[in-house]
């Protein structure tokens, strides 16, 4: 009896939690769609320039039924994944090196921050000249967009490792590699993940800019879909593609958010999520 009551209380509690988590999002979506529909009905712009949500979502569902759309998603996601992984590897190596080697930090510490704030689109003219209109040019800029944020995440993470932890490592007899592997890097993980989140957002932005500028024949991508829709004045498809880009960005960000929350919860750092 007690168990039944307890499990019922728990179910009610999780249902309440799920609702508390869902309703603000549903409300925000309803607000945006409602505002958009009102703008459409007000005929502020002709419907061929600004279609309503119904027409746009209809276009989205039609697009989702085509092979070309999924090919475009696959191309864009492959580029994003490859570029991000490359940026992760290079950014992490550079970050650890800069955090550990003082002259290197003096030499390039500021350059990394400079690169981080530099708009990645500014790299494209050079990337196109050096690599041509191809995948390498896009990847180059994605890596340059994401790498500095990841490197800075590593550097900040290592800088903020409590000295008591490194002292503990020495007391326990950890060698330099073990100290980094077992203590410094795990301690730096929350800040590192924050750097990864920022790196992802820069990678995603750089990629979209790249796909709009570097159009490779016979290779559909979300960027080219967007550009073709603009050229053909297919505004519902254009907005539908923008929604897809927004959703993918949010989806990946929520994956990082979940990882970050788990790390903080495991360490007793989560406040209330």
């Amino acid at each position, binding site marked *: 009896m007690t168990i039944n009551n307890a499990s019922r209380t728990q179910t009610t509690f999780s249902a309440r939690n799920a609702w508390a988590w869902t309703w603000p999002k549903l409300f925000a979506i309803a607000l945006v769609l409602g505002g958009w529909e009102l703008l459409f009905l007000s005929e502020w712009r002709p419907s061929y320039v600004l279609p309503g949500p119904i027409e746009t979502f209809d276009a989205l569902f039609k697009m989702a039924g085509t092979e070309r759309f999924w090919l475009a998603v696959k191309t864009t996601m492959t580029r994003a994944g490859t570029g991000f992984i490359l940026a992760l590897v290079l950014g992490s190596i550079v970050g650890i090196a800069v955090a550990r080697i003082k002259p290197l930090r003096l030499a390039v510490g500021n350059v990394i921050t400079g690169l981080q704030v530099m708009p990645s689109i500014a790299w494209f003219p050079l990337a196109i000249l050096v690599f041509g209109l191809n995948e390498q040019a896009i990847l180059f800029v994605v890596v340059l967009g994401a790498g500095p944020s990841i490197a800075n995440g590593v550097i900040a993470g290592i800088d903020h490792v409590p000295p*008591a932890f490194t*002292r*503990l490592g*020495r*007391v*326990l007899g*950890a060698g330099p590699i073990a100290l980094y592997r077992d203590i410094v890097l*795990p*301690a730096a993980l929350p800040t590192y993940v924050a750097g990864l989140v920022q790196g992802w957002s820069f990678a995603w932005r750089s990629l979209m800019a790249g796909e709009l500028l570097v159009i490779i024949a016979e290779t559909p991508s979300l960027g080219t879909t967007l550009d073709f829709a603009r050229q053909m004045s297919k505004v519902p498809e254009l907005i539908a593609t923008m929604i897809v880009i927004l959703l993918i960005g949010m989806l990946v960000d929520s994956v990082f958010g979940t990882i970050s929350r788990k790390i903080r919860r495991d360490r*007793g750092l989560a406040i209330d999520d």
Partner: protein
Amino acid sequence: MKQAELMLRADNVSKSFGPEGAATVALSGVDMSIRAGEFVTIVGASGCGKSTLLNLFAGLDKPSSGTIEVNGKVALMFQEATLLPWLTARKNIELALNYAGVARSDRDARVAELLDIVRLGDWADKRPHELSGGMRQRVALARCLAQGARIVLMDEPLGALDAMTRDHLHDEIESIVKAQGLTVVFVTHNMREAVRLGDRVILMGSRPGRVVYEQSVPLKRPRTMDSNDIASRAADLTNRLKAEQGILEGADS
């Protein structure tokens, strides 16, 4: 009677921090000898160089002058438990066993044994934030023992705990130290604690840090913090410290 083996020795040790000319002298002319199986407590006001001395014994720092002799492996326990927050109690201890060179196949059994010694067998898979302050210090103690050192340096390990937990841990530390035959240097600023635990109490004065008084404590064990013998010895130590610092006598510890 043959004297026990000398485990730690500080010979005219001085330690300064900062640039020459503007250096702060943390320790000056410290002489100290600690023999095998001794439980020595070091007391003194904040900033008297107690922790600096432990760091020198632990090899974390070098003396500016004088010599430090350490006869065997040393483990150090801090005021804060400093458990790694991403590891469970079991994994925190296992890390120390790993660094101590214990074979992977032997680690599980050794961790279980150590957790039993500190009576935390049921809490092995909890992370530090899921444990109370006292439990965290017990895990830190188990980790300290995992290093397989015969000399244990404790830097105010119970300073942040409530009185009741601290009393429990006194009993626990005392019995573990006896059972394992450890040599202990225990730093505290609590006079009663120093007398309660120590076979010998060393009082340090400040500016610069140096040994000003030494007293052996021949009281029978088990001891309790509120016994009259401990209270009167603690009051005596407090008065000596006050006199050393130029403060009028009269108040109790």
